[in-house]
């Protein structure tokens, strides 16, 4: 629940900062008034670096923990670089939470295929926390994670810990590797046909670069998963986060308001459109 005006960034402190990868950092923020109501896995906040800019960043923490907001940021432009460089006690602006979440309630009783590419693991991590916190509500759970190289594996220690769980299958693949890598090499959509699962009783949650999601959705459809059971987290140019400015319009959807999590039946035909 938001007590702030939705257009007004609320100043909150950075509580901690942890380097995940060369250019990727996880920040813990004070929840402020905006964050006290919690969030849904898959939602995002607008984070404002004063004097630089405001960008949408997905939650990457445990949704059952509301005393700190966790966001994982890759430094790629002015705002994200400044945000990623924010030291503890620095102040950033916060608006949110915004957007739709992963279909955690609708997926109860089903098997889950969670498929992440690169930094796309961050917006899926709250869903994984939720599943692990409520493990009895879900059937078989499989995480497929693909990234560029072994050095680019996000949350590596956590992936290893999850892989040790008896009721959670983790499969990691990288696009290329040196000869010291003993794991799988190849693209993540290619893992889908190697799994034995019941497509009629499976919900797939996919997040990563759009091309990766397109190929993955195609592999899931080939395996017999219904379009309505495939959910993607879309990324577009979100500015207002309220569906007013129109920057993130994608077909008939506003990604900030109707998404970012959308089922594939609403995206079919849109993913291959050229965007300039």
């Amino acid at each position, binding site marked *: 629940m938001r007590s702030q005006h939705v257009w007004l960034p609320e100043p909150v402190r950075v509580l901690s900062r942890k380097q995940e990868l060369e*250019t990727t950092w996880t920040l813990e923020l004070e929840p402020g008034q905006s964050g006290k109501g919690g969030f849904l896995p898959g939602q995002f906040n607008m984070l404002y670096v004063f004097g630089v*800019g405001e*960008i949408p960043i997905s939650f990457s923490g445990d949704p059952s923990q509301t005393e700190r907001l966790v966001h994982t940021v*890759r430094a*790629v*432009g*002015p*705002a*994200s670089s400044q945000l990623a460089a924010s030291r503890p006690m620095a102040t950033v602006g916060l608006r949110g939470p915004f957007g739709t979440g992963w279909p955690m309630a609708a997926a109860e009783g089903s098997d889950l295929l969670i498929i992440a*590419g*690169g*930094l796309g693991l961050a917006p899926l991590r709250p869903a994984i926390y939720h599943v692990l916190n409520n493990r009895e509500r879900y059937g078989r759970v499989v995480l497929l994670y*693909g*990234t*560029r190289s072994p050095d*680019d594996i996000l949350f590596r220690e956590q992936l290893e810990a999850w892989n040790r769980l008896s009721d959670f299958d983790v499969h990691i*693949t990288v*696009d*290329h*590797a*040196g*000869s*010291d*890598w*003993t*794991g*799988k*090499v*190849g*693209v993540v*959509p*290619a893992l889908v046909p*190697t799994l034995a699962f019941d497509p009629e009783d499976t919900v797939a949650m996919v997040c*990563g*670069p759009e*091309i*990766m999601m397109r*190929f993955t959705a195609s592999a899931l459809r080939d395996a017999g998963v219904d379009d309505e059971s495939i959910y993607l987290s879309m*990324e*577009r*140019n*979100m500015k207002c986060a309220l569906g007013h400015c129109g920057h993130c319009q994608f077909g008939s959807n506003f990604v900030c308001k109707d998404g970012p999590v959308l089922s594939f039946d609403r995206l079919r035909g849109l993913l291959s459109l050229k965007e300039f």
Partner: protein
Amino acid sequence: MKSIAQLVCEHPFFQGLNSEFCDLMCGCARNVRFNPGEYLFHQGEDADHLYLIRHGQVALELAVPGKSPVSFQTLHDGDVVGVSWVLPPYHWSSDARAMSLTRAIAMDAHCLRKKCDEDPALGYAVLKRLLPILTSRLNATQMQILDVYGAPEERQ
């Protein structure tokens, strides 16, 4: 212990192939094993076998001057290693290294090509099994070339 005919006909690559064709294929097959680190073949050598992995893991690699080899795909139980045997001039396009103890069925390429040439129906059946593998590897290569996990520009 299973016979070579059983191993060949039960391998996913030949699943669904009629028994007559399968029996023909078995004449080209033998069991092989590779220790970890051992190479199945090297780039540029004659592509003289098709390998059907029974158990193990194989890395397809390219040698990069001045660097250690780069692996671009790993293959596992039930996968096929090597498609160059069907395409003239029949030279391997990469190296293949066993990452773990790998047991496979090696199909002699000359024998395979001869039987496929003599019986176009058999050749077509084999090609229908190879084409999806080639297509999926082409799709994977497209994604790898695009380097989709590279940093996107920040949308402002």
